[in-house]
Protein backbone atom coordinates (compact mmCIF):
# COMPACT_ATOMS: atom_id res chain seq x y z
CA UNK A 1 0.00 0.00 0.00
CA UNK A 2 1.49 3.31 -1.05
CA UNK A 3 0.60 6.78 0.09
CA UNK A 4 -2.51 6.71 -2.11
CA UNK A 5 -3.81 3.76 -0.12
CA UNK A 6 -3.08 5.65 3.08
CA UNK A 7 -5.05 8.59 1.72
CA UNK A 8 -8.09 6.35 1.34
CA UNK A 9 -7.56 4.95 4.82
CA UNK A 10 -7.51 8.51 6.24
CA UNK A 11 -10.72 9.41 4.42
CA UNK A 12 -12.50 6.29 5.63
CA UNK A 13 -11.43 6.97 9.21
CA UNK A 14 -12.74 10.55 8.98
CA UNK A 15 -15.99 9.41 7.41
CA UNK A 16 -16.45 6.87 10.18
CA UNK A 17 -15.91 9.60 12.80
CA UNK A 18 -18.36 11.92 11.03
CA UNK A 19 -20.95 9.15 10.74
CA UNK A 20 -20.58 8.39 14.45
CA UNK A 21 -21.06 12.08 15.29
CA UNK A 22 -24.17 12.31 13.09
CA UNK A 23 -25.65 9.20 14.73
CA UNK A 24 -24.91 10.61 18.20
CA UNK A 25 -26.70 13.83 17.22
CA UNK A 26 -29.56 11.80 15.79
CA UNK A 27 -29.85 9.97 19.09
CA UNK A 28 -30.06 13.29 20.98
CA UNK A 29 -32.53 14.87 18.56
CA UNK A 30 -34.78 11.89 17.86
CA UNK A 31 -38.16 12.73 16.29
CA UNK A 32 -37.43 16.44 16.10
CA UNK A 33 -36.97 18.76 13.14
CA UNK A 34 -33.18 18.49 13.59
CA UNK A 35 -33.44 14.71 13.54
CA UNK A 36 -35.35 14.90 10.25
CA UNK A 37 -32.73 17.22 8.76
CA UNK A 38 -29.98 14.81 9.72
CA UNK A 39 -31.85 11.82 8.30
CA UNK A 40 -32.97 13.48 5.08
CA UNK A 41 -30.01 15.69 4.25
CA UNK A 42 -26.83 14.62 6.03
CA UNK A 43 -27.02 10.83 6.03
CA UNK A 44 -27.67 10.58 2.24
CA UNK A 45 -24.55 12.68 1.59
CA UNK A 46 -22.48 10.43 3.85
CA UNK A 47 -23.87 7.29 2.24
CA UNK A 48 -23.06 8.60 -1.22
CA UNK A 49 -19.53 9.43 -0.16
CA UNK A 50 -18.88 6.04 1.41
CA UNK A 51 -20.21 4.28 -1.67
CA UNK A 52 -18.20 6.43 -4.06
CA UNK A 53 -14.98 5.88 -2.08
CA UNK A 54 -15.40 2.13 -2.35
CA UNK A 55 -16.22 2.22 -6.03
CA UNK A 56 -13.49 4.81 -6.72
CA UNK A 57 -16.02 6.67 -8.83
CA UNK A 58 -14.43 10.08 -8.55
CA UNK A 59 -16.91 12.91 -8.63
CA UNK A 60 -20.04 11.09 -9.77
CA UNK A 61 -22.94 11.44 -7.40
CA UNK A 62 -25.92 9.20 -7.71
CA UNK A 63 -28.20 10.09 -4.79
CA UNK A 64 -31.34 12.01 -5.68
CA UNK A 65 -33.30 12.31 -2.48
CA UNK A 66 -35.32 15.51 -2.63
CA UNK A 67 -35.09 16.15 1.11
CA UNK A 68 -37.91 18.66 1.52
CA UNK A 69 -35.79 20.79 3.85
CA UNK A 70 -34.56 24.35 3.46
CA UNK A 71 -30.85 24.05 2.81
CA UNK A 72 -28.48 27.01 2.45
CA UNK A 73 -24.91 26.75 1.26
CA UNK A 74 -22.55 29.63 1.97
CA UNK A 75 -20.54 30.36 -1.15
CA UNK A 76 -17.56 32.64 -1.55
CA UNK A 77 -16.95 31.58 -5.11
CA UNK A 78 -13.89 29.64 -4.00
CA UNK A 79 -13.33 26.03 -4.95
CA UNK A 80 -14.25 24.46 -1.59
CA UNK A 81 -17.57 26.23 -1.11
CA UNK A 82 -18.53 25.78 -4.78
CA UNK A 83 -17.81 22.06 -4.53
CA UNK A 84 -20.00 21.95 -1.40
CA UNK A 85 -22.82 23.63 -3.31
CA UNK A 86 -22.54 21.18 -6.21
CA UNK A 87 -22.44 18.19 -3.84
CA UNK A 88 -25.54 19.44 -2.01
CA UNK A 89 -27.29 20.04 -5.32
CA UNK A 90 -26.44 16.64 -6.79
CA UNK A 91 -27.41 14.92 -3.56
CA UNK A 92 -30.90 16.29 -4.12
CA UNK A 93 -30.92 18.77 -1.24
CA UNK A 94 -32.22 21.61 -3.45
CA UNK A 95 -29.86 24.15 -1.88
CA UNK A 96 -29.96 27.92 -2.04
CA UNK A 97 -26.54 29.49 -2.61
CA UNK A 98 -25.88 32.42 -0.36
CA UNK A 99 -23.03 34.82 -0.88
CA UNK A 100 -21.83 37.92 0.93
CA UNK A 101 -20.52 40.95 -0.93
CA UNK A 102 -17.46 42.11 0.97
CA UNK A 103 -16.10 45.67 0.99
CA UNK A 104 -12.71 44.56 -0.34
CA UNK A 105 -14.27 42.82 -3.34
CA UNK A 106 -13.93 39.24 -4.42
CA UNK A 107 -11.29 37.40 -6.31
CA UNK A 108 -13.13 34.14 -6.75
CA UNK A 109 -12.02 31.56 -9.27
CA UNK A 110 -15.62 30.47 -9.95
CA UNK A 111 -18.32 32.60 -11.56
CA UNK A 112 -21.06 31.91 -9.05
CA UNK A 113 -23.91 33.43 -11.03
CA UNK A 114 -23.08 31.38 -14.11
CA UNK A 115 -22.72 28.20 -12.08
CA UNK A 116 -26.02 28.73 -10.27
CA UNK A 117 -27.79 29.28 -13.59
CA UNK A 118 -26.24 26.12 -14.98
CA UNK A 119 -27.39 24.00 -12.03
CA UNK A 120 -30.70 25.83 -11.51
CA UNK A 121 -29.70 26.92 -7.99
CA UNK A 122 -31.25 30.09 -6.53
CA UNK A 123 -28.59 32.63 -5.52
CA UNK A 124 -29.05 35.10 -2.66
CA UNK A 125 -26.57 37.95 -2.26
CA UNK A 126 -26.21 39.73 1.08
CA UNK A 127 -24.57 43.11 1.41
CA UNK A 128 -21.80 43.88 3.87
CA UNK A 129 -22.51 45.56 7.17
CA UNK A 130 -20.90 48.27 9.28
CA UNK A 131 -18.96 45.55 11.11
CA UNK A 132 -17.21 44.51 7.89
CA UNK A 133 -16.19 48.09 7.20
CA UNK A 134 -14.87 48.37 10.75
CA UNK A 135 -12.88 45.18 10.26
CA UNK A 136 -11.53 46.50 6.96
CA UNK A 137 -10.24 49.68 8.64
CA UNK A 138 -9.11 48.02 11.86
CA UNK A 139 -7.14 45.23 10.24
CA UNK A 140 -5.22 47.66 8.06
CA UNK A 141 -4.44 49.88 10.99
CA UNK A 142 -3.49 47.26 13.55
CA UNK A 143 -2.07 44.66 11.19
CA UNK A 144 -3.42 41.38 12.56
CA UNK A 145 -4.36 38.39 10.46
CA UNK A 146 -7.94 39.01 9.30
CA UNK A 147 -9.16 35.47 8.48
CA UNK A 148 -10.34 34.43 11.95
CA UNK A 149 -12.30 37.58 12.68
CA UNK A 150 -13.70 37.83 9.16
CA UNK A 151 -14.89 34.22 9.31
CA UNK A 152 -16.61 34.81 12.66
CA UNK A 153 -18.41 37.87 11.26
CA UNK A 154 -19.46 35.98 8.19
CA UNK A 155 -20.78 33.00 10.15
CA UNK A 156 -22.69 35.31 12.50
CA UNK A 157 -24.28 37.10 9.53
CA UNK A 158 -25.24 33.87 7.80
CA UNK A 159 -26.66 32.26 10.93
CA UNK A 160 -28.86 35.29 11.44
CA UNK A 161 -30.04 35.10 7.82
CA UNK A 162 -30.66 31.35 8.11
CA UNK A 163 -32.74 31.84 11.27
CA UNK A 164 -34.75 34.58 9.56
CA UNK A 165 -35.64 32.45 6.56
CA UNK A 166 -36.30 29.37 8.73
CA UNK A 167 -33.53 27.27 7.20
CA UNK A 168 -32.90 23.74 8.46
CA UNK A 169 -29.31 23.32 7.35
CA UNK A 170 -26.49 25.67 6.49
CA UNK A 171 -23.49 24.26 4.66
CA UNK A 172 -20.00 25.77 4.67
CA UNK A 173 -16.93 24.96 2.61
CA UNK A 174 -14.54 24.33 5.52
CA UNK A 175 -12.19 21.41 5.00
CA UNK A 176 -10.25 21.35 8.26
CA UNK A 177 -12.83 20.65 11.02
CA UNK A 178 -13.25 16.99 10.16
CA UNK A 179 -14.97 14.16 12.02
CA UNK A 180 -16.52 15.23 15.32
CA UNK A 181 -16.19 18.89 14.38
CA UNK A 182 -17.77 18.71 10.94
CA UNK A 183 -21.36 19.09 12.12
CA UNK A 184 -23.15 20.82 14.98
CA UNK A 185 -26.52 22.13 16.01
CA UNK A 186 -26.42 25.90 16.34
CA UNK A 187 -29.51 26.86 18.25
CA UNK A 188 -33.10 26.64 17.15
CA UNK A 189 -33.49 24.07 14.42
CA UNK A 190 -30.43 24.96 12.43
CA UNK A 191 -27.73 22.42 11.64
CA UNK A 192 -24.28 23.71 10.66
CA UNK A 193 -22.40 21.35 8.32
CA UNK A 194 -18.86 21.80 7.03
CA UNK A 195 -19.61 19.82 3.88
CA UNK A 196 -16.06 19.04 2.60
CA UNK A 197 -14.91 18.19 6.15
CA UNK A 198 -17.95 15.96 6.77
CA UNK A 199 -17.34 14.11 3.52
CA UNK A 200 -13.53 14.13 3.90
CA UNK A 201 -13.17 15.82 0.52
CA UNK A 202 -9.76 17.24 -0.34
CA UNK A 203 -8.90 20.16 -2.61
CA UNK A 204 -8.11 17.90 -5.60
CA UNK A 205 -11.54 16.31 -5.35
CA UNK A 206 -13.13 19.74 -4.91
CA UNK A 207 -11.34 20.90 -8.07
CA UNK A 208 -12.60 17.84 -9.93
CA UNK A 209 -16.18 18.49 -8.76
CA UNK A 210 -16.12 22.14 -9.82
CA UNK A 211 -14.23 21.44 -13.02
CA UNK A 212 -11.89 24.37 -12.29
CA UNK A 213 -8.53 23.93 -14.00
CA UNK A 214 -6.92 27.35 -13.59
CA UNK A 215 -4.29 28.53 -11.15
CA UNK A 216 -5.51 28.93 -7.56
CA UNK A 217 -4.41 32.00 -5.64
CA UNK A 218 -4.08 32.01 -1.87
CA UNK A 219 -6.48 34.23 0.08
CA UNK A 220 -8.67 37.19 -0.78
CA UNK A 221 -7.83 40.75 -1.83
CA UNK A 222 -7.75 41.98 1.76
CA UNK A 223 -5.32 39.28 2.83
CA UNK A 224 -2.97 40.14 -0.01
CA UNK A 225 -2.99 43.80 1.00
CA UNK A 226 -2.35 42.85 4.64
CA UNK A 227 0.54 40.57 3.64
CA UNK A 228 2.20 43.52 1.91
CA UNK A 229 1.44 46.10 4.58
CA UNK A 230 2.11 43.98 7.66
CA UNK A 231 4.62 41.37 6.64
CA UNK A 232 4.53 39.39 9.88
CA UNK A 233 0.98 38.24 8.98
CA UNK A 234 2.53 36.12 6.23
CA UNK A 235 3.72 33.63 8.86
CA UNK A 236 0.16 33.08 10.06
CA UNK A 237 -0.91 32.41 6.48
CA UNK A 238 1.98 30.01 5.96
CA UNK A 239 0.99 28.15 9.10
CA UNK A 240 -2.57 27.95 7.79
CA UNK A 241 -1.27 26.42 4.55
CA UNK A 242 0.73 23.89 6.57
CA UNK A 243 -2.36 23.05 8.64
CA UNK A 244 -4.25 22.22 5.46
CA UNK A 245 -1.32 20.20 4.16
CA UNK A 246 -0.90 18.30 7.43
CA UNK A 247 -4.60 17.44 7.44
CA UNK A 248 -4.31 16.16 3.86
CA UNK A 249 -6.68 18.81 2.45
CA UNK A 250 -4.14 20.06 -0.09
CA UNK A 251 -1.22 18.31 -1.72
CA UNK A 252 2.46 19.19 -1.46
CA UNK A 253 2.57 20.84 -4.89
CA UNK A 254 -0.28 23.18 -4.05
CA UNK A 255 1.22 23.96 -0.64
CA UNK A 256 4.52 24.88 -2.25
CA UNK A 257 2.79 27.21 -4.69
CA UNK A 258 0.80 28.89 -1.89
CA UNK A 259 3.88 29.29 0.31
CA UNK A 260 5.90 30.95 -2.45
CA UNK A 261 2.91 33.15 -3.32
CA UNK A 262 2.74 34.29 0.31
CA UNK A 263 6.50 34.72 0.71
CA UNK A 264 6.76 36.77 -2.46
CA UNK A 265 3.90 39.07 -1.46
Amino acid at each position, binding site marked *: *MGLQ*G*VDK*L*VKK*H*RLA*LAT*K*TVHNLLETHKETRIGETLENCVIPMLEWRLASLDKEQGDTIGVETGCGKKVLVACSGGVDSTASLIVACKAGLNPVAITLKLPWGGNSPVNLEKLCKEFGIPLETLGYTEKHLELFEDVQQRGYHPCGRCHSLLVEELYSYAHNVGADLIGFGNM*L*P*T*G*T*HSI*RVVGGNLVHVNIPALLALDKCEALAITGFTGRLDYGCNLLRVIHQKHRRTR*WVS*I*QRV*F*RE*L*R*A*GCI*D*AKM*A*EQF*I*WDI*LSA
Partner: protein
Amino acid sequence: MKQETDLRKQKILRLAEETRKKLGMRYTPIEIVKTIHDKEKDRLYIIVGDRPDKTALIGPGGLVAAKLKENLGVKTLTVVSKLDLVVKRRMIKEHIKLLSKTDQPNVEPLKKLCRLELFYPPRRVPQPEKLGQIFVHHCPNNLASEKLAKTLGYKTTGVISPETELNQDGSIYTRKPPITCGECFTSVVCSVKKVGGNLLLANTRNPVFSVEDLLVVNLAKLLWLTREDLHEILGREPPPCWARRASLGMGVGTHLFVRHIIEDVSLGLLEPNQATREIYGLTRCGQACKKA
Protein backbone atom coordinates in the same frame (compact mmCIF):
# COMPACT_ATOMS: atom_id res chain seq x y z
CA MET B 1 -8.85 -1.26 34.44
CA LYS B 2 -11.41 -0.33 31.79
CA GLN B 3 -13.52 1.36 34.43
CA GLU B 4 -10.49 3.40 35.54
CA THR B 5 -9.82 4.48 31.94
CA ASP B 6 -13.47 5.43 31.43
CA LEU B 7 -13.43 7.51 34.60
CA ARG B 8 -10.25 9.23 33.46
CA LYS B 9 -11.82 9.90 30.05
CA GLN B 10 -14.86 11.50 31.66
CA LYS B 11 -12.66 13.57 33.96
CA ILE B 12 -10.56 14.79 31.02
CA LEU B 13 -13.67 15.72 29.03
CA ARG B 14 -15.14 17.59 32.00
CA LEU B 15 -11.91 19.45 32.74
CA ALA B 16 -11.37 20.32 29.08
CA GLU B 17 -14.91 21.66 28.79
CA GLU B 18 -14.54 23.74 31.97
CA THR B 19 -11.19 25.18 30.90
CA ARG B 20 -12.43 25.99 27.40
CA LYS B 21 -15.46 27.72 28.91
CA LYS B 22 -13.22 29.78 31.23
CA LEU B 23 -11.14 30.82 28.23
CA GLY B 24 -14.30 32.06 26.52
CA MET B 25 -14.39 29.31 23.93
CA ARG B 26 -17.56 27.64 22.74
CA TYR B 27 -18.44 24.04 23.58
CA THR B 28 -16.95 21.58 21.17
CA PRO B 29 -17.28 17.80 21.27
CA ILE B 30 -13.99 15.94 21.74
CA GLU B 31 -13.63 12.31 20.76
CA ILE B 32 -11.32 10.58 23.24
CA VAL B 33 -10.57 7.08 22.03
CA LYS B 34 -8.50 5.96 25.00
CA THR B 35 -5.95 7.01 27.59
CA ILE B 36 -2.69 5.24 28.38
CA HIS B 37 -0.63 5.99 31.46
CA ASP B 38 3.06 5.18 31.18
CA LYS B 39 3.81 4.75 34.88
CA GLU B 40 7.56 4.45 34.34
CA LYS B 41 7.84 7.95 32.90
CA ASP B 42 4.64 9.28 34.51
CA ARG B 43 3.40 10.23 31.08
CA LEU B 44 -0.27 10.23 30.14
CA TYR B 45 -1.14 9.62 26.50
CA ILE B 46 -4.59 10.76 25.40
CA ILE B 47 -5.59 9.21 22.10
CA VAL B 48 -8.19 11.34 20.32
CA GLY B 49 -10.16 10.73 17.13
CA ASP B 50 -8.60 13.20 14.72
CA ARG B 51 -6.58 16.39 14.54
CA PRO B 52 -9.47 18.79 15.34
CA ASP B 53 -10.03 16.86 18.59
CA LYS B 54 -6.33 17.21 19.36
CA THR B 55 -6.48 20.96 18.69
CA ALA B 56 -9.53 21.33 20.94
CA LEU B 57 -7.92 19.34 23.75
CA ILE B 58 -4.59 21.19 23.59
CA GLY B 59 -6.27 24.58 23.33
CA PRO B 60 -4.77 27.92 22.35
CA GLY B 61 -1.10 28.03 23.30
CA GLY B 62 -1.50 24.68 25.06
CA LEU B 63 -3.57 26.27 27.84
CA VAL B 64 -6.19 23.51 28.05
CA ALA B 65 -3.54 20.77 28.05
CA ALA B 66 -1.54 22.59 30.73
CA LYS B 67 -4.60 22.80 32.98
CA LEU B 68 -5.34 19.12 32.36
CA LYS B 69 -1.77 18.15 33.25
CA GLU B 70 -1.98 20.13 36.47
CA ASN B 71 -5.33 18.64 37.48
CA LEU B 72 -4.48 15.08 36.54
CA GLY B 73 -1.16 15.30 38.40
CA VAL B 74 1.02 13.77 35.70
CA LYS B 75 4.54 14.78 34.73
CA THR B 76 3.94 14.81 30.99
CA LEU B 77 0.81 14.83 28.91
CA THR B 78 0.81 13.85 25.26
CA VAL B 79 -2.20 14.11 22.97
CA VAL B 80 -2.02 11.78 19.98
CA SER B 81 -4.44 11.58 17.08
CA LYS B 82 -5.75 8.06 16.45
CA LEU B 83 -5.63 8.77 12.73
CA ASP B 84 -1.91 9.55 12.93
CA LEU B 85 -1.40 6.25 14.74
CA VAL B 86 -3.40 4.37 12.10
CA VAL B 87 -1.20 5.85 9.36
CA LYS B 88 1.99 5.25 11.34
CA ARG B 89 1.15 1.59 11.93
CA ARG B 90 0.23 1.05 8.30
CA MET B 91 3.48 2.58 7.11
CA ILE B 92 5.61 0.61 9.59
CA LYS B 93 3.97 -2.63 8.47
CA GLU B 94 4.92 -1.72 4.89
CA HIS B 95 8.48 -1.03 6.01
CA ILE B 96 8.75 -4.38 7.81
CA LYS B 97 7.78 -6.04 4.52
CA LEU B 98 10.51 -4.06 2.74
CA LEU B 99 13.07 -5.11 5.34
CA SER B 100 11.98 -8.75 5.02
CA LYS B 101 12.71 -8.65 1.30
CA THR B 102 16.38 -7.84 1.89
CA ASP B 103 18.89 -10.62 2.55
CA GLN B 104 21.00 -8.61 5.01
CA PRO B 105 21.66 -10.65 8.14
CA ASN B 106 21.77 -7.74 10.60
CA VAL B 107 18.39 -6.14 9.90
CA GLU B 108 16.56 -8.42 12.34
CA PRO B 109 16.99 -5.98 15.28
CA LEU B 110 15.57 -3.20 13.08
CA LYS B 111 12.53 -5.35 12.33
CA LYS B 112 12.16 -6.03 16.04
CA LEU B 113 12.29 -2.28 16.71
CA CYS B 114 9.63 -1.71 14.04
CA ARG B 115 7.38 -4.35 15.58
CA LEU B 116 7.69 -2.71 18.99
CA GLU B 117 6.97 0.72 17.50
CA LEU B 118 3.65 -0.70 16.25
CA PHE B 119 2.53 -0.66 19.89
CA TYR B 120 3.40 3.01 20.44
CA PRO B 121 2.31 4.68 22.72
CA PRO B 122 4.27 4.24 24.95
CA ARG B 123 7.53 3.72 23.07
CA ARG B 124 9.44 0.55 23.86
CA VAL B 125 12.99 -0.20 22.80
CA PRO B 126 14.34 -3.78 22.80
CA GLN B 127 17.04 -4.78 25.27
CA PRO B 128 20.52 -4.04 23.86
CA GLU B 129 22.28 -6.97 22.25
CA LYS B 130 25.79 -7.45 20.90
CA LEU B 131 25.21 -6.59 17.27
CA GLY B 132 27.39 -6.09 14.22
CA GLN B 133 28.73 -2.93 12.70
CA ILE B 134 26.50 -0.27 11.23
CA PHE B 135 27.61 2.87 9.38
CA VAL B 136 25.91 6.13 10.16
CA HIS B 137 25.96 9.17 7.91
CA HIS B 138 26.93 12.06 10.17
CA CYS B 139 24.24 14.61 9.46
CA PRO B 140 22.27 16.81 11.89
CA ASN B 141 19.08 15.06 10.89
CA ASN B 142 20.51 11.64 11.60
CA LEU B 143 21.46 12.17 15.23
CA ALA B 144 18.40 10.40 16.66
CA SER B 145 18.92 7.42 14.35
CA GLU B 146 22.51 7.13 15.53
CA LYS B 147 21.38 7.17 19.14
CA LEU B 148 18.70 4.53 18.48
CA ALA B 149 21.21 2.29 16.70
CA LYS B 150 23.54 2.52 19.70
CA THR B 151 20.64 1.68 22.04
CA LEU B 152 19.95 -1.45 20.01
CA GLY B 153 23.57 -2.51 20.48
CA TYR B 154 25.02 -1.83 17.04
CA LYS B 155 28.66 -0.78 16.82
CA THR B 156 28.21 2.54 15.02
CA THR B 157 30.80 4.09 12.77
CA GLY B 158 30.17 7.65 11.69
CA VAL B 159 30.80 8.53 8.07
CA ILE B 160 31.32 12.05 6.79
CA SER B 161 31.41 12.94 3.16
CA PRO B 162 34.98 13.94 2.17
CA GLU B 163 33.67 17.33 1.07
CA THR B 164 32.20 18.15 4.46
CA GLU B 165 33.94 19.39 7.56
CA LEU B 166 33.11 19.23 11.21
CA ASN B 167 32.24 22.58 12.72
CA GLN B 168 33.91 23.70 15.90
CA ASP B 169 30.83 22.98 17.99
CA GLY B 170 30.79 19.47 16.57
CA SER B 171 27.14 19.60 15.60
CA ILE B 172 27.01 20.70 11.98
CA TYR B 173 29.18 20.30 8.98
CA THR B 174 30.45 22.75 6.41
CA ARG B 175 30.90 22.11 2.78
CA LYS B 176 33.21 24.03 0.49
CA PRO B 177 32.19 24.90 -2.18
CA PRO B 178 28.47 24.86 -1.35
CA ILE B 179 26.39 21.90 -2.45
CA THR B 180 22.72 21.07 -2.23
CA CYS B 181 21.53 18.93 0.66
CA GLY B 182 21.70 15.27 -0.25
CA GLU B 183 24.59 15.68 -2.69
CA CYS B 184 27.10 14.43 -0.13
CA PHE B 185 25.16 11.15 0.11
CA THR B 186 26.87 9.72 -3.01
CA SER B 187 30.34 10.15 -1.55
CA VAL B 188 29.18 8.68 1.78
CA VAL B 189 27.92 5.57 -0.02
CA CYS B 190 31.27 5.26 -1.84
CA SER B 191 33.20 5.55 1.44
CA VAL B 192 31.08 2.83 3.10
CA LYS B 193 31.39 0.52 0.10
CA LYS B 194 35.18 0.93 0.09
CA VAL B 195 35.45 -0.44 3.62
CA GLY B 196 32.99 -3.25 2.82
CA GLY B 197 30.06 -2.00 4.90
CA ASN B 198 26.66 -3.50 4.23
CA LEU B 199 24.31 -1.38 6.34
CA LEU B 200 24.14 2.42 6.34
CA LEU B 201 21.84 4.68 8.31
CA ALA B 202 21.21 7.90 6.41
CA ASN B 203 18.68 10.68 6.23
CA THR B 204 17.25 9.68 2.87
CA ARG B 205 13.79 10.17 1.37
CA ASN B 206 13.10 6.43 1.14
CA PRO B 207 13.07 4.47 4.38
CA VAL B 208 14.73 1.33 2.93
CA PHE B 209 16.62 0.81 -0.31
CA SER B 210 19.71 -0.94 -1.63
CA VAL B 211 22.69 0.43 -3.50
CA GLU B 212 24.11 -2.83 -4.88
CA ASP B 213 25.14 -4.77 -1.73
CA LEU B 214 24.70 -1.85 0.61
CA LEU B 215 21.39 -1.51 2.43
CA VAL B 216 20.51 2.10 3.21
CA VAL B 217 17.98 2.70 5.99
CA ASN B 218 16.44 5.94 7.20
CA LEU B 219 15.62 4.83 10.72
CA ALA B 220 13.49 7.87 11.54
CA LYS B 221 11.30 7.30 8.50
CA LEU B 222 11.32 3.53 8.99
CA LEU B 223 9.72 4.01 12.40
CA TRP B 224 7.63 6.96 11.15
CA LEU B 225 9.06 9.21 13.83
CA THR B 226 7.79 12.77 14.10
CA ARG B 227 9.84 15.77 15.20
CA GLU B 228 8.39 15.28 18.70
CA ASP B 229 9.53 11.66 18.74
CA LEU B 230 13.04 12.65 17.65
CA HIS B 231 13.06 15.22 20.45
CA GLU B 232 12.06 12.52 22.94
CA ILE B 233 14.73 10.10 21.70
CA LEU B 234 17.52 12.68 21.50
CA GLY B 235 16.57 14.33 24.76
CA ARG B 236 16.84 17.73 23.10
CA GLU B 237 15.40 19.65 20.16
CA PRO B 238 16.73 18.19 16.89
CA PRO B 239 18.62 20.75 14.76
CA PRO B 240 16.23 22.63 12.51
CA CYS B 241 16.34 22.39 8.75
CA TRP B 242 17.77 25.88 8.33
CA ALA B 243 20.78 24.94 10.43
CA ARG B 244 21.68 22.64 7.59
CA ARG B 245 21.34 25.48 5.14
CA ALA B 246 23.43 27.73 7.31
CA SER B 247 26.05 25.03 7.49
CA LEU B 248 26.03 24.49 3.76
CA GLY B 249 26.34 28.10 2.81
CA MET B 250 24.88 30.51 0.32
CA GLY B 251 24.86 28.38 -2.80
CA VAL B 252 22.20 26.04 -1.54
CA GLY B 253 18.74 26.50 -3.03
CA THR B 254 16.13 27.58 -0.51
CA HIS B 255 13.55 25.92 -2.74
CA LEU B 256 15.00 22.52 -2.00
CA PHE B 257 14.77 23.03 1.75
CA VAL B 258 11.23 24.38 1.50
CA ARG B 259 10.35 21.26 -0.47
CA HIS B 260 11.91 19.04 2.25
CA ILE B 261 9.84 20.80 4.92
CA ILE B 262 6.65 20.52 2.86
CA GLU B 263 7.27 16.83 2.29
CA ASP B 264 7.76 16.20 6.01
CA VAL B 265 4.52 18.03 6.82
CA SER B 266 2.55 16.15 4.17
CA LEU B 267 3.84 12.84 5.58
CA GLY B 268 2.76 13.94 9.04
CA LEU B 269 6.30 13.99 10.47
CA LEU B 270 6.40 17.73 11.08
CA GLU B 271 3.69 19.85 12.69
CA PRO B 272 2.48 23.11 11.04
CA ASN B 273 3.96 25.34 13.75
CA GLN B 274 7.33 23.60 13.55
CA ALA B 275 7.31 23.83 9.76
CA THR B 276 6.48 27.55 9.88
CA ARG B 277 9.36 28.09 12.29
CA GLU B 278 11.66 26.22 9.91
CA ILE B 279 10.57 28.31 6.92
CA TYR B 280 11.02 31.45 9.00
CA GLY B 281 14.51 30.36 10.05
CA LEU B 282 15.33 29.49 6.47
CA THR B 283 14.37 32.90 5.12
CA ARG B 284 16.15 34.71 7.99
CA CYS B 285 19.22 32.62 7.24
CA GLY B 286 18.88 33.44 3.52
CA GLN B 287 18.79 37.15 4.31
CA ALA B 288 21.82 36.81 6.58
CA CYS B 289 23.69 34.99 3.81
CA LYS B 290 22.79 37.72 1.30
CA LYS B 291 24.08 40.40 3.67
CA ALA B 292 27.30 38.46 4.20
